[in-house]
């Protein structure tokens, strides 16, 4: 009897304790729920590190509206069920905004709850579906795939002038979403998808995929994989002598992949959404600061986290209070320039769905470095 009683009290204590008091003086509670373990750990930790760096900077400079930012980071284990639990946990403590998650599935499950609670959610997810669900409190920190894929498609159509294309993608929600949007854009432009090759997360041996690519004999190859897999793929492609141009979106042209692929990335080209290699001083300074602090090169998720915090700071200072509802109203349609808020790094505009619009780039890997060949203007400025 005693033991059960003890257990029950432990349970009660633990759940009661779960939300520690945040009501200290002059802080604002802006928790983050991120993929710190499981399949999304790399994205999640990058996002977290970028975010915490921005928060430290802001707190050192006096916080937002005189309030220090308090951001506990909770792990979703890259799982939708756990994401929901962790979001519920922070919602119980009335957050002002919530950062994360990055995985699209986790965003989809949490955004309905934040909408109900009228709390803005600054997410890292890129799946098209996120902003197509009328969840009016969700804000992206990078292009949704419905915006990035047309840019790639245009590039393949206009610059490469490919008649047929092969697509290699990683079979998870990120890769599948990209692949679906991409093939749709290809169809719209009358380009034949000659090979549609699915790969697994963590796949090591790409020889079969490259053999298939060779067989397809397409004019261009679109590669939509995570970093390590991109590097392994590039090595194999080089080994088997793939001649068609390899086109990527952001990841493939990242310095990380270039380093990991060791020479095999030479000549890779494509669209770069958010990159530490952007020809913008603010971004490069950020990248250097990040590298100095964490001792690794940050990927686009780090920038998402960093700029996400400054986005919140800017909007909050505009509305002059910590009010989620007012935040959402103000943020829809807002444009932030680096002149007004240096931490935003690049001019950014949020539309009524919470989609973000920024400049982006066309690049190429030359001599082991990403070289930007063209800057694509913001969609809204065309």
């Amino acid at each position, binding site marked *: 009897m005693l033991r059960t009683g003890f257990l029950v009290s432990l349970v009660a204590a633990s759940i009661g304790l779960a939300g520690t008091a945040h009501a200290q003086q002059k802080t604002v509670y802006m928790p983050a729920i991120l993929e710190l373990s499981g399949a999304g750990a790399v994205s999640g930790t990058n996002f977290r590190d970028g975010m915490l760096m921005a928060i430290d900077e802001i707190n050192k400079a006096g916080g937002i509206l005189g309030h220090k930012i308090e951001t506990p980071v909770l792990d979703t284990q890259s799982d939708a069920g756990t994401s929901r639990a962790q979001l519920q946990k922070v919602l119980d403590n009335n957050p002002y905004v919530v950062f994360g998650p990055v995985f699209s599935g986790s965003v989809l499950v949490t955004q309905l709850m934040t909408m109900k609670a009228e709390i803005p959610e600054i997410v890292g997810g890129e799946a098209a579906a996120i902003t197509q669900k009328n969840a009016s409190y969700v804000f992206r920190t990078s292009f949704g795939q419905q915006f990035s894929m047309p840019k790639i498609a245009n590039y393949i159509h206009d610059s490469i002038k490919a008649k047929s294309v092969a697509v290699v993608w990683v079979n998870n929600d990120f890769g599948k979403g990209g692949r679906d949007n991409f093939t749709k854009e290809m169809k719209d432009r009358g380009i034949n998808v000659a090979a549609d090759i*699915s790969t697994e997360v963590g796949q090591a041996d790409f020889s079969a995929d490259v053999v298939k690519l060779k067989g397809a004999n397409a004019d261009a190859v679109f590669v939509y994989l995570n970093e390590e897999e991109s590097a392994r793929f590039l090595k194999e492609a080089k080994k088997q002598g793939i001649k068609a141009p390899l086109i990527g979106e952001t990841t493939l042209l990242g310095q990380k992949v270039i380093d990991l692929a060791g020479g095999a990335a030479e000549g890779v080209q494509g669209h770069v959404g958010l990159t530490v290699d952007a020809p913008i001083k603010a971004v490069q300074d950020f990248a250097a600061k990040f590298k100095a602090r964490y001792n690794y090169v940050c990927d686009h998720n780090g920038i998402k986290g960093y700029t996400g915090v400054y986005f919140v700071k800017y909007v909050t200072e505009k509305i002059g209070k910590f009010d989620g509802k007012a935040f959402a109203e103000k943020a829809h349609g807002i444009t932030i320039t680096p002149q007004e808020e240096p931490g935003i790094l690049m001019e950014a505009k949020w539309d009524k769905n919470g989609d973000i619009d920024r400049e982006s780039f066309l690049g190429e890997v030359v001599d082991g470095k990403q070289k930007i060949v063209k800057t694509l203007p913001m969609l809204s400025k065309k």
Partner: protein
Amino acid sequence: MASFIQLMVSGLATGAIYALIAIGFTLLWQTSQTINFAQGEFVMLPAFFVLAAMNMGAPYWLAALIGIALSVVILGVLFKAVIVDPMIRHGVLPLVITTIALSLFLKESVKDFYSSQAQPFPALVAPRDLHFLGAVVSLQSIVVLAVAVATVIGLHLLLNKTRLGRCMQATAQNPTVARILGIPVGRMVLYTFLINGALVAIASLLISPIYLAKFTNGEALGMAAFIAAIIGGFNQVRGAILGGIILGVLDNLSAAYLSSSYRGAFPLVILIAVILFRPQGLLGRVEERAV
């Protein structure tokens, strides 16, 4: 045809890696009935020992030796003393749970204390490609294959041609009888753990240049090792190499010619078929069953 050869050659190289990992797995099972669900993480970890040593200024060869030594001590001796020994008498399942927890522990530790990022890893040989009957194969893959085969031959000789090896085999087959014959069973079991520690370290050195060192590497590797071990024959060292190579080649062929989104399914179907129709594995002997 060239592409077929390409697939075979690449599959062979990947299969050799699986084999190397599967051998240790098989050895542990034979001598101590340990199903090591952390075997994949055991391969992931030594690369980080090496990287850590190199970060402290050790040259590659020294770092590699340190890595192997640490691996033998930590993944061999410590693993046996701290986890397997106290648990083994309680049956297989608690130990399964423990090794699953251990795999989580190792993964998370590397992520939190080293890095969540993939790390480039120095290669044993220069990155050169060789052309062979229309297929291209990297020198690295050939080295992997050679080392794997040499390891298996070495192990085979050790197990079958030396007194020590025969003692180990006797221990694996029937510990009670081995004990009666005066074989120090405890020490023999320890040796298999040491060998496993060394094997996973070697595997780690071989594959990390290709796979890159990352905390998640173990997930796919561990599973591949299970499958290879079972297909080849759970109670046979030779079986592991056959199983590994079948797996590597099969994976490539099915991804290229059947379905890439179901590539993960084919090895599993073979696995189930082997278990159901030839549970001793392709090269295994029938285990005696007491009624």
